[in-house]
């Protein structure tokens, strides 16, 4: 029972990471119809920048928040390159983000080297239901939950958020009303950057990251997002949790090396199983 609880909890924290990254995919895709391959890259930026800020003796809390903001700015830069030029088709944009992720890997290795890095997190553990759970994991779950709620409020209740949704829903009417779709796209990328950065900041302390972490993180996030058809943030959260918890259970009962396999299989299964509803989703 103890073991199961631990698997579930660590699954939730990993799932939260995937859900955050997945939400980034969803935000960008909903507003620009582009799939942003750099979502994993942004998570790595978040973790590495947070590590560096902490090593400059910037206090906890401030360092992480700053890292998230900086990653948001990086997302904005990526936006300029990807959708800054008018008339770039979505597939080309995807390949541009691929190029940006390769470029970023070079930056990672140049500045931070090749070895995995884990910034300092919260120490200690709390006993919940008889199992000892690392405080950092609890923090991750808590912060992620807050982030999702804020995201929901942003898109559902703020004028800017509604404007962004409108730009995606009917670009023609949005243009008539004065909404600048490109600008909305930039904001979407910035938000996605912050989401990815947050994912990296909270995960890195117990799951060291390096230049090669971007791909598995992107795939995990994409898998979560596909659960929600690349458009529903709440289903993305569900997808992330399923992926995270499922992966941990597989790792626990079948051995760690099958965790990646489980995630990849889930991604393929979801895409293939949902292909009918996904194409309906796209047609909307």
């Amino acid at each position, binding site marked *: 029972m103890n073991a199961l609880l631990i698997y579930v909890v660590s699954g939730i924290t990993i799932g939260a990471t995937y859900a955050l990254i997945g939400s980034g995919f969803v935000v960008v895709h909903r507003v620009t119809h582009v799939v942003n391959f750099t979502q994993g890259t942004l998570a790595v930026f978040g973790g590495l920048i947070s590590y560096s800020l902490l090593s400059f003796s910037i206090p906890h809390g401030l360092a992480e928040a700053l890292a998230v903001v900086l990653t948001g700015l990086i997302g904005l830069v990526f936006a300029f390159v990807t959708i800054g030029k008018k008339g770039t088709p979505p597939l080309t944009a995807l390949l541009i983000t691929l190029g940006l992720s390769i470029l970023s890997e070079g930056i990672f290795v140049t500045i931070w080297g090749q070895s995995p890095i884990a910034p300092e997190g919260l120490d200690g553990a709390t006993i919940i239901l008889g199992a000892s759970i690392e405080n950092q994991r609890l923090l991750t779950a808590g912060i992620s939950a807050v982030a999702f709620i804020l995201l929901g409020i942003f898109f559902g209740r703020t*004028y800017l958020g*509604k*404007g962004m*949704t*409108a730009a995606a*829903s*009917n670009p*023609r*009417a*949005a*243009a*008539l*009303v*004065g*909404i600048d779709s490109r600008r909305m796209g930039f904001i979407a990328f910035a938000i996605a950057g912050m989401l990815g950065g947050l994912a990296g900041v909270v995960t890195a302390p117990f799951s060291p990251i390096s230049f090669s972490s971007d791909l598995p993180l992107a795939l995990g996030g994409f898998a979560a997002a596909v659960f929600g058809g690349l458009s529903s943030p709440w289903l993305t959260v569900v997808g992330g949790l399923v992926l995270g918890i499922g992966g941990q259970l597989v790792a626990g009962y079948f051995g760690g090396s099958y965790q990646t396999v489980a995630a990849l299989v889930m991604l393929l299964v979801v895409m293939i199983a949902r292909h009918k509803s996904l194409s309906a989703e796209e047609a909307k």
Partner: protein
Amino acid sequence: MLNLEDVVIRYGFATAVDGVSISVEKGEMVALVGPNGAGKSSIVNAISGVIPVASGTITVDGASAQVPEGRQMFANMSVDDNLRLGAWRVKDRNPAAIYELLPDLARMKDQKAGTLSGGQQQMVAVGRALMAGPDLLLVDELSLGLAPLIVADLANYLTELNASRGMTILLIEQEVDLAFRMCARAYVLEAGRIVASGASATLAADPQLSAAYLGGIEASADRKRLK
């Protein structure tokens, strides 16, 4: 209020609008009629600033807002949200004034725009355009796909808007009868060029014009009988 001088609009190598000049005075309600593909929507979109003009000038004395062809709702958003988004460019985002003008909309304010009927959506589209507080209203194909009774209601509303509030309106319409009844003055567009303009009554009475561009006198008389 609105002045188009020798406007030319191109899409790639095709010329959609070939040297069109139109003027609308403040407080007027003017029609722009013509068959499908004549270039009416291009002109309206150019006035709204969403497509570029290859040559010629467009001057608007103030701000314009468009009621687009096909309503163009933000389908998954509520009527209230659709209206508020109409005020994107201006400070006042409160739809209270619109609800006063169009009480029916107030009753539907929380419904998703995509679930409304065509006529209701058209009302939302008009309301949304009005939210921007425009000096010039561009109405693109008001009657498209709507039942005559509904169109009559909307037409009355717009006429009222023009008569009592002095809203300048440019009405783009395929339904020539409707356009001539609502507007005292009209331009006839065919294949990107203005082929006739002047008082609606004069235009309607010209048999050659009617036959060539306006669907014929018989057809027009038929429509009169049905109304």
